[in-house]
């Protein structure tokens, strides 16, 4: 059965609306992986200039001379003070929207036009057609590319929205905590966002949905109530050179990743449909997460000072592409993720302070995570964690555990153990701080010790491979089991692990079903009952206590 059809079938079976991140969203569908491509930056071609009078004129005087002259020339062409208006009136396919230094609030789109009053009050899932009718009901800036309902972009395609300042913070796009999304790119194939800062969304600062081809480059995301940069049921997407911080959930979230390839190259030779590279994600609840985060390759990033550095999982319902599989993390720095956002003081602050009045740097966590964890795979298959430096995560460097299929709403009991299988941990440097964090040689494991609580933690479950004929089967691999090979601890010594290193299977692993250690699995369960107001400290769950620094 084609994977797209599987996703569609799964969606049709759902009684609940789909979810992006973890909020209500219309049922969505994966783009055709054989169409679309990764967008390329364009420095010429038709363009429209947006500026902020009188702010821009003053700000460009502070730019380096050559850039100042470029911006002074642009200023003579400026006809728009609103990015949305420029898109609406001049945003033909292939247009470049050049946004000059200034802070953009898009005031005229904050109040409903006639006929959209109800939609502006609705924070639930709107249909695509409702978004077309009232584009700014939930979105400060909406780029809606499909006008004929075939889910393929036919207007506002290949848009490039680019700040013309020296650094991203010269151009700020501000949600003012009121709109769910600051920028929504929905079926907006080929979109390229570059060189600005986006902040203060009520849910997602940047949101790519059902978009085949997107790129977000040199963008700073801050102070989102939930997610910084989020993509969902999209393909051919690149997050690069980004910084994402102070999000209540995740800095970057490639959720419901492309579900067609399963580790095999597509017609264009792309094994991974979503790429995250050269990004820094810090001081969020999670640096990077993705329920059903399939087909994603994160490399050369830094995930640090979050509560948990990285997660991918299969434990929420309503996400197309379950169970999660075939993503890769390589050459990342995953460190110091001990930022406890769950202590009594933060619980009280978040409980007593309305979102609108909160200090933007006091993050209130949306979901619960194990504080002090570097990288976590919860119910994933055939992932690769390779040649990363992972240190100073006081609970665990990495975690891998099974998620019963029923927890994602799967009713076929034959699939109960269809995660976690065939994940590989290779050549990672554990509990070692690189000598020069800005110039890391990933081919060696060198540097002073900086210990994780335990380098590798596994619940000892090996999921069942399924037979290809089984609907929804994605794990037919018969070569690999979960396995750990050529990983190092400090100074070439053995890494630490639970179970002990001698019990961790070396690659290719032992690819036969094992239900795992029930006591380890049981200790995860009470954490599911966490609630920030009613149950902030559930008995039996130690996730919310900062582990002591390992010595």
């Amino acid at each position, binding site marked *: 059965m084609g994977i797209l059809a599987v996703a569609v079938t799964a969606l049709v079976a759902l009684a609940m609306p789909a979810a992006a991140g973890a909020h209500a969203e219309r049922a969505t569908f994966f783009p055709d992986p054989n169409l679309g491509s990764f967008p390329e930056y364009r420095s010429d071609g038709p363009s429209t200039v947006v500026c902020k009078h009188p702010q821009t004129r003053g700000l460009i005087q502070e730019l380096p001379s050559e850039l100042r002259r470029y911006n002074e020339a642009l200023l003579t062409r400026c006809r728009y003070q609103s990015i949305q208006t420029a898109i609406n009136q001049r945003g033909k396919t292939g247009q470049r929207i050049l946004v000059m230094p200034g802070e953009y609030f898009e005031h005229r789109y904050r109040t409903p036009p006639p006929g959209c009053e109800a939609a502006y009050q609705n924070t639930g899932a709107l249909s695509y057609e409702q978004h077309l009718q009232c584009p700014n009901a939930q979105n400060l800036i909406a780029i809606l590319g499909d006008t004929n309902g075939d889910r393929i972009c036919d207007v506002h395609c290949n848009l490039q929205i680019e700040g013309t300042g020296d650094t991203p913070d010269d151009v700020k796009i501000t949600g003012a905590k009121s709109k769910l999304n600051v920028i929504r790119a929905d079926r907006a194939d080929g979109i390229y966002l570059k060189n600005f800062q986006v902040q203060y969304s009520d849910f997602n600062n940047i949101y790519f949905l059902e978009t085949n081809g997107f790129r977000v480059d040199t963008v700073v995301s801050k102070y989102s109530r939930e997610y910084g940069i989020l993509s969902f049921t999209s393909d051919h997407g690149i997050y690069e050179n980004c910084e994402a911080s102070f999000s209540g959930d995740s800095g970057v979230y490639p959720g419901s990743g492309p579900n067609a390839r399963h580790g095999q190259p597509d017609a264009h030779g792309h094994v991974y449909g979503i790429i995250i590279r050269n990004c820094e994600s810090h001081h969020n609840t999670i640096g990077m997460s993705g329920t059903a985060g399939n087909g994603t390759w994160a490399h050369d990033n830094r995930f640090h000072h979050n509560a948990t550095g990285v997660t991918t999982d299969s434990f929420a319902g309503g996400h197309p592409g379950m169970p999660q599989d075939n993503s890769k993390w390589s050459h990342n720095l995953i460190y110091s993720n001990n930022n406890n956002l769950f202590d009594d003081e933060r619980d009280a602050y978040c409980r007593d302070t309305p979102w609108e009045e909160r200090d933007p740097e006091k993050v209130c966590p949306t979901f619960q995570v194990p504080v002090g964890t570097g990288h976590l795979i919860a119910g994933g298959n055939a992932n690769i964690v390779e040649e990363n430096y992972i240190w100073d995560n006081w609970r665990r460097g990495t975690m891998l555990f099974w998620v019963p299929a029923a927890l994602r709403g799967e009713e076929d009991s034959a699939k109960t153990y269809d995660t976690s299988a065939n994940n590989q941990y290779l050549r990672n440097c554990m509990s070692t701080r690189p000598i020069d964090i800005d110039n890391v040689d990933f081919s060696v494991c060198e540097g002073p010790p900086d210990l994780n609580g335990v380098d590798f933690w596994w619940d000892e479950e090996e999921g069942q491979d399924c037979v290809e004929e089984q609907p929804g089967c994605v794990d037919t691999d018969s070569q690999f089991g979960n396995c750990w090979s050529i990983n190092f601890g400090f100074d070439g010594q053995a890494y630490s692990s639970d179970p002990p290193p001698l019990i961790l299977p070396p690659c290719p692993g032992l690819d036969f079903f094992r239900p795992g250690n029930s006591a380890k699995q049981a200790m995860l369960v009470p954490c*599911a009952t966490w609630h920030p107001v009613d149950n902030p400290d559930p008995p039996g769950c130690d996730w919310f206590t900062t582990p002591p620094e390992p010595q």
Partner: protein
Amino acid sequence: MDAPRAAVAALLVLAVALLVAAGCGEDSGSAQLEWLDTPTVIVPPTLRTDRILRGDVRNDSGDALRVDASEVRVYDNRGRRLKATATFAAGYLHSLYPPTRGPATLPDSELERLGKIATIESGQTAQMTVSWREPAGRRTATRIDYGPGSLRIPPETRGRERDF
């Protein structure tokens, strides 16, 4: 029945009633759920005052039973309520929605997925996880009240608690 015999009978009835009330008989309450097997109790290594009990319960009531995890209570051997939490989920998971931002009511299917409720048909079983905090760190919990009935925490689990 003569007066002395009636008095003895009344005393016996009273004694049995007192024993049952004190929890010394079979499961107290209306005994609608029964442990399928002796549940497991775990002491988390980093939370020595806490206990996690996992076990399968069978509905022996003859009718379908809907149990709300938020109404599960744990009591100690002196009848005092302990801080506790319960779920019917088989593993860790989280909601589709952030806990403070979701819809006011969720359909039962979603509540069941989340382990917040269990609807157990007569003769069927469900896995239940109950965790609680022992203020002094030593095991005192004896009873789990689930609303329509209660379950005794088998004393034999005390000797089999797994230090993990």
